[in-house]
């Protein structure tokens, strides 16, 4: 049954901004789908608001719409493009929900668009609890006993039947939003209350608790001929009670007999058939009682999921690609498996089940350090922001590789000699509650003498896994006790995943010495291949992982190779944007005739797709692991060098170590990187170029910091040196706050100084991405922040081209950028942050690497900056790239034409994911430390429309009616009158604080006064602004903070209001420029004039 001929055009919906529970795995799946569909000659129409994705590169679709994924905007695209079909199963819950809305409001029927991949009915059966439970029952499975509830009363009745604890699961939310475990009445009221409001259908499920059971997941694929295959089984090391996204997971399942596994498989096949996912993939989760094997089916996702991305990387079976093919009518036996070759050179078919001869471990990466006060306990509500995956020939090797892939100093096991006294009972109590870092505590408990059974009793972690941890500990003890590190012992430790760093710590020597000894003994890893078939057939794809085994499978090659280091697990401040640049480098260098070799450990990414680069090494990004890859590739053929500047801080941090070990670093040298990152050296660069920087000093103690602050004058910005994403950065306004900050910075000292900078108040912040080849500067883009200075650039919205800067300012920026690029010695990309205050252009910082904004700039200006950068690193000049058509023939991002559309970037925050242990919202104050997980882009001819789109994509559409709350700083009151009057004329009801209301009234705008937050509730129960916002009584917030007073109540009040707006998911305007933009946007929305336009169409203008 070949491809359907009636489908000529398909609309693919992406997943929008990166948020917790929905990360770049959907860029990976969507990119695969677009590639497949295009290759089949189908016209691909893509909608995604996230500019940092590969899928929104114009070459991946015929019409790429960077537009908000809301029913309104998607309908506009449908009306314009009239696709034959809509494929909603590859863009996460966002795409699925958009498709459901378009079905329910009749748009799909109106335009004759067929949903492919999964029908509306199948999605409904998969996601509606009652229907799904009936299906499980029908196929002979069991679900947890449960009750569907629509009110809190219902919930209490359900608990009366089931008894505590119960699990609360809201319907139709993604990533487990709003779900949790209730142990008491208070818990129930809190969790179920939130769940009911989070659910679009005001529905939650109250369910019997199966906490502590073994948890499994199967990835299933079905075609229209009813062929069904299981791609992968995944077992959670953390038992039931922890969201799969937050669990350490293992593939394949380790502790099931064949009978039990086949039972799960039979259920999966029965369920996918009954639900009716007839052309695509889905995943099904199970709980298994460790005492008697009773199986409970937990849920299914009738779409490609985060686990699908993991399963694809774990097995080599490209689930999204195959899902796209079966969606357009192919059957599995007609689709070749790209990886495996028959002896005649043809491929074996995709209609089979991958088998693994290795173990895959995925570990979550958390960001609790970014959200002080957040409850770090792990529950059914996903909290991790990223993940790392590792492959080994056994579990211990894979686990230890995965832990060091996290790049968190607390992640890897540590047997340092100076360990603290370990208290077994305290540790056993501690590991009872799942939390970030529990595994290390489990190891500590074992070190303290706990038995595998004791650990099982306290954690329900399967004894087989506990025994594997025990094995690791036994080897550590052997290494500790051995009179000398014999080759046998060293080899044994390496076979179980010990890094040189770990061994060195145990033996009291440096990792370099361990490596030297190891190399002298010839103990090096070999590289095996992920081939879907456990070596039964020859593999055509060089997808490798290291193992301390005997035989290596790295093939010799002729062409010179370039090794590209990826960015590792997603975290706040380092995510998909860096993967974007790495992927671009791989694509362009392949085209230019190089052999591209990718090293990365993030299973969610496009870079770890086996066909993105010529060779893929799924390896931790540590010096040891990268040096071994370089060595293996040097044995295979010529290696030109390593690219470190595209994957963010992770590879950048490796550059010096690699160079010290004789590896060529392509592009900007490690010395130049140091020059930009070390404040003193960078200060000299600026001084030489006569560029002003805010006054600053470096402190190693409080008296130090105090002296510097006194010199500079408050407010000052304090932060540790060498950090990404503004980690630990704060603006302090007085001595007390400064002392508090230094007191909390436990690591402060000569090796870890704290930077004290002057905070330039009331300034416009500017971000620049530029390319420098040693001679010529190409200004990629100049972005003007819409928020006031002081908010981390990753969290601010910004506009490109800059909306209030003229040619003179841009020329100054260009001159300064060029001077810095030359002074530092940049060869490739450079990102600089400037602040323009009182007509002085200050240089805040410079990063000689690809920045977070490279994809945004590239999309906005239709210039492939990362590709150009990769080629500059390999020696091409900007002039040559202009001639080759990679860069525009003339001009650059600083000389954009007058009809250049405006791109607005808006950040998306994860605050709604975190609660304090007592259930309160965590502090949502924005500041110099980055907290956003993702971003969207609004793109249109004028700023107002672009701004409206960015708001719609990030939070939901700007309102066109309702109540507006206004609170303006004194300096802004004069500028607000006209725009607020416009809003009032459009019928908005205006609420304001006392001072603002007075000014408005005097200018003929009626405004109702509401109480400030610090005033508290009024005597007659009058709500404060914050309460009104949280209660959903206000549709738009306009609040410009008073930037002057140090820690004044006005500023704090502003933060409280902003926090409330974020929690209530309503737009919050914080600048006068933003207000003007919002008013323009609202007017455009009201007139119904905001249209949609594809990137390809913009490019043709």
């Amino acid at each position: 049954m070949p491809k359907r001929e009636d489908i000529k055009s398909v609309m693919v919906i992406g997943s929008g901004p990166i948020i917790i529970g929905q990360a770049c795995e959907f860029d990976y799946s969507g990119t695969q789908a677009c590639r497949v569909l295009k290759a089949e000659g189908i016209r691909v129409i893509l909608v995604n608001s996230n500019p940092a994705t590969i899928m929104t590169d114009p070459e991946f679709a015929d019409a790429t719409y960077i537009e908000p994924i809301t029913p309104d905007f998607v309908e506009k695209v449908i009306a314009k493009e009239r696709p034959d079909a809509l494929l909603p199963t590859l863009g996460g819950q966002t795409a699925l929900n958009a498709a459901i809305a378009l079905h329910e409001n009749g748009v799909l029927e109106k335009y004759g668009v067929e949903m492919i991949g999964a029908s509306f009915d199948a999605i409904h059966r998969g996601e509606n609890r009652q229907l799904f439970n009936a299906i499980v029952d029908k196929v002979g499975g069991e679900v947890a006993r449960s009750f569907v509830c629509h009110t809190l009363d219902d919930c209490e009745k359900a608990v009366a039947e089931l008894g505590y604890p119960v699990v609360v699961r809201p319907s139709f939310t993604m990533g487990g939003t709003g779900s949790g475990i209730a142990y008491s009445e208070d818990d129930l009221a809190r969790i179920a209350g939130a769940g009911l409001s989070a659910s679009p259908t005001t529905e939650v499920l109250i369910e019997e608790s199966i906490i502590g059971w073994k948890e499994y997941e199967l990835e299933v694929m079905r075609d229209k001929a009813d062929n069904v295959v299981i791609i992968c089984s995944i077992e959670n090391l953390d038992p039931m009670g922890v969201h799969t996204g937050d669990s350490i997971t293992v593939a394949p399942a380790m502790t099931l007999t064949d009978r039990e596994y086949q039972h799960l498989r039979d259920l999966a096949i029965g369920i996918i058939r009954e639900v009716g996912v007839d052309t695509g993939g889905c995943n099904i989760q199970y709980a298994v009682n460790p005492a008697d094997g009773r199986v409970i089916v937990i849920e299914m996702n009738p779409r490609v999921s985060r686990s699908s991305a993991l399963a694809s990387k774990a097995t080599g079976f490209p689930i999204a690609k195959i899902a796209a093919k079966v969606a357009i009518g192919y059957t599995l036996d007609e689709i070749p498996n790209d990886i495996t070759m028959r002896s005649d050179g043809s491929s074996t078919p995709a209609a089979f089940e991958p088998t693994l001869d290795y173990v895959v471990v995925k570990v979550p990466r958390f960001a609790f350090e970014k959200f002080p006060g957040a409850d770090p306990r792990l529950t059914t509500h996903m909290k991790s922001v990223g993940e790392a995956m590792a492959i080994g020939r056994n579990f211990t090797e894979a686990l230890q590789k995965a832990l060091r892939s996290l790049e968190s100093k607390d992640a890897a096991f540590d047997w340092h000699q100076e360990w603290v006294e370990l208290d077994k009972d305290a540790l056993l109590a501690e590991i009872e509650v799942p939390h970030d870092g529990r595994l290390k505590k489990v190891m500590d408990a074992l070190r303290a003498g706990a038995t595998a059974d004791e650990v099982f009793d306290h954690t329900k972690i399967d004894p087989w896994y506990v025994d594997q941890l025990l094995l690791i500990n036994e080897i550590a003890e052997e290494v500790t006790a051995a009179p000398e590190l014999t080759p046998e012992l060293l080899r044994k430790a390496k076979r179980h995943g010990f890094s040189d760093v770990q061994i060195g710590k145990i033996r009291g020597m440096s990792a370099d010495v361990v490596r030297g000894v190891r190399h002298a003994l010839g103990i090096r890893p070999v590289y095996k291949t992920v081939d879907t078939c456990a070596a039964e057939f020859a593999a055509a794809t060089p997808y490798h992982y290291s193992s301390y085994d005997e035989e290596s499978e790295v093939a010799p090659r002729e062409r010179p190779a370039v090794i590209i280091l990826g960015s590792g697990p997603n975290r706040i401040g380092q995510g998909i944007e860096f993967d974007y640049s790495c992927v671009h480098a791989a694509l362009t260098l392949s085209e230019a005739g190089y052999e591209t070799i990718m090293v990365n450990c993030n299973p969610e990414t496009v870079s770890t797709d086996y066909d993105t680069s010529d060779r893929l090494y799924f390896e931790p990004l540590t010096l040891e692991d990268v040096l071994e890859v370089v060595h293996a590739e040097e044995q295979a053929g010529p290696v030109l060098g390593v690219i470190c500047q595209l994957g963010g801080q992770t590879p950048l941090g490796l550059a010096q170590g690699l160079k010290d070990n004789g590896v060529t670093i392509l592009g900007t040298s490690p010395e130049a990187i140091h020059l930009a990152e070390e404040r003193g050296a960078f200060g000299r660069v600026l001084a030489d170029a006569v560029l002003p920087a805010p006054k600053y000093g470096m402190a190693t103690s409080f008296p130090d910091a105090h002296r510097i602050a006194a010199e500079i004058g408050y407010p000052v910005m304090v932060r540790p040196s060498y950090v990404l994403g503004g980690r630990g950065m704060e603006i302090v306004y007085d001595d007390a706050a400064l002392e508090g900050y230094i007191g909390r910075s436990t690591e402060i000292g000569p090796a870890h100084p704290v930077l004290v900078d002057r905070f330039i108040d009331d300034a416009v912040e500017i971000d620049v991405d530029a390319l420098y080849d040693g001679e010529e500067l190409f200004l990629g883009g100049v972005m003007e922040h819409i928020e006031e200075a002081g908010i981390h650039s990753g969290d601010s919205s910004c506009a490109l081209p800059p909306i209030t800067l003229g040619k003179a300012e841009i020329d100054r920026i260009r001159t300064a950028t060029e001077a810095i690029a030359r002074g530092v010695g940049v060869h490739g990309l450079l990102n600089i942050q400037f602040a323009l205050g009182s007509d002085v252009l200050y240089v805040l910082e410079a990063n000689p690497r690809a920045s977070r904004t490279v994809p945004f700039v590239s999309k906005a200006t239709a210039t492939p900056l990362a590709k150009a950068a990769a080629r500059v690193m390999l020696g091409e000049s900007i002039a040559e790239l202009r001639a080759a058509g990679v860069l525009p023939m003339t001009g650059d991002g600083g000389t954009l034409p007058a009809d250049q559309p405006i791109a607005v970037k808006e950040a998306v925050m994860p605050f709604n994911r975190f609660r304090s242990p007592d259930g309160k919202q965590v502090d949502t104050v924005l500041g110099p430390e980055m907290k956003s997980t993702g971003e969207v882009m609004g793109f249109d001819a004028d700023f107002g429309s672009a701004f409206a789109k960015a708001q719609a994509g990030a939070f939901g559409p700007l309102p066109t009616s309702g109540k507006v709350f206004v609170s303006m700083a004194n300096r802004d009151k004069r500028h607000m009158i006209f725009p607020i009057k416009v809003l009032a004329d459009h019928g908005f009801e205006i609420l304001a604080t006392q001072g603002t209301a007075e000014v408005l009234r005097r200018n003929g705008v009626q405004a109702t006064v509401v109480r400030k937050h610090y005033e508290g509730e009024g005597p007659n129960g009058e709500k404060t602004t914050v309460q009104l916002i949280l209660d959903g009584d206000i549709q738009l917030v306009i609040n410009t903070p008073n930037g002057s007073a140090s820690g004044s109540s006005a500023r704090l009040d502003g933060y409280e209001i902003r926090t409330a707006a974020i929690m209530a998911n309503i737009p919050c305007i914080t600048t006068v420029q933003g207000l003007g933009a919002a008013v323009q946007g609202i007017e455009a929305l009201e007139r119904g004039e905001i249209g949609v336009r594809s990137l390809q169409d913009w490019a043709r203008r």
Partner: protein
Amino acid sequence: MAAAILVLEDGRTFTGEAYGAEGETFGEAVFNTGMTGYQETLTDPSYHRQVVVMTAPHIGNTGVNDEDQESSRIWVAGYVVRDPARRVSSWRAQRSLDDELRTQGVVGISGIDTRALTRHLRERGAMRVGISSTETDPAALLERVLASGEMAGSELSSEVSTAAAYVVPAHGEKRFTVAALDLGIKTMTPYRMAERGIEVHVLPATATIDDIRAVGPDGLFYSNGPGDPAATTHQIEVLQGALADELPYFGICFGNQLFGRALGFGTFKLKYGHRGINQPVMDRTTGKVEVTAHNHGFAVDAPLEGTTSTPYGEASVSHVCLNDDVVEGLELRAPTGSASEPGRLKGFSVQYHPEAAAGPHDAAYLFDRFVQLMEGTV
């Protein structure tokens, strides 16, 4: 832990640790790619005289229980794993695999690069191998490997078959009686028939056509089993007799190869065989793909397209492996030109394992087809 060596007949040597019983063993080296089901594999009589290399690294995690045995003992001649479990974890486990191997005297080796060994067998083909924890000199072991017996040309089913006939009663009401020739039968096979109301008379491999007739069967079944089908003559003659009697026939694995030979086709040794539980097979009558359990080193040589006339009817290939186009099933039908019921199914067989222990249950419908064959409804 004692050291052990593994030497292939082409001289390639691997050094590891003794696993299971200590001692020395020889057999044909084959690899199995199943990620679950090691206990079923070990107790599958078809692995008689074979040294099985497990490609999945962790083996023994769920221990051993009495329910999952596919016969009364472990049959493999030797066992090769990478990382044996130190601790058993399963609510059904009764003992550890390590203990079981030792108790049954099965010599194994662990800690070797099983993937390298698998790749070697894939490229060079299945070959003889020796494992020893008593010999330290690979050259000396190689000599003994070269002196050991070859798989090709070996008749082995008589070595694994039951000595005496026995009956597996039907579950519930008995609907049919089947004579099942034990050429290395697995426990799950008669169980699957009994579930469908079949009383299964399991007969020794040496049973004659008269022994079969004596059961008064509605159908005849030939099981899986070890060895080279070309070295078998007795069971082929018996099968030809039964086909002449118009006795409905169903065969699995070795029973497929013997069916092929009884119909006049040849058999041949595959380079490295199919051993795993993820093999895609297409049922050519429906166009559907089933994921199936395989364990075969030999295959039937029959034309993939068209039918072949035989003295018993028209034979055709019903199932094909999608990975390599190997014949995975045969069908025998009344000739289209025959006067009575042209095209009626008379017998069928598959090269793989619908009883699926270990393995997916996709092919369980074949037992229903056997019932329909005996009912005359197919």
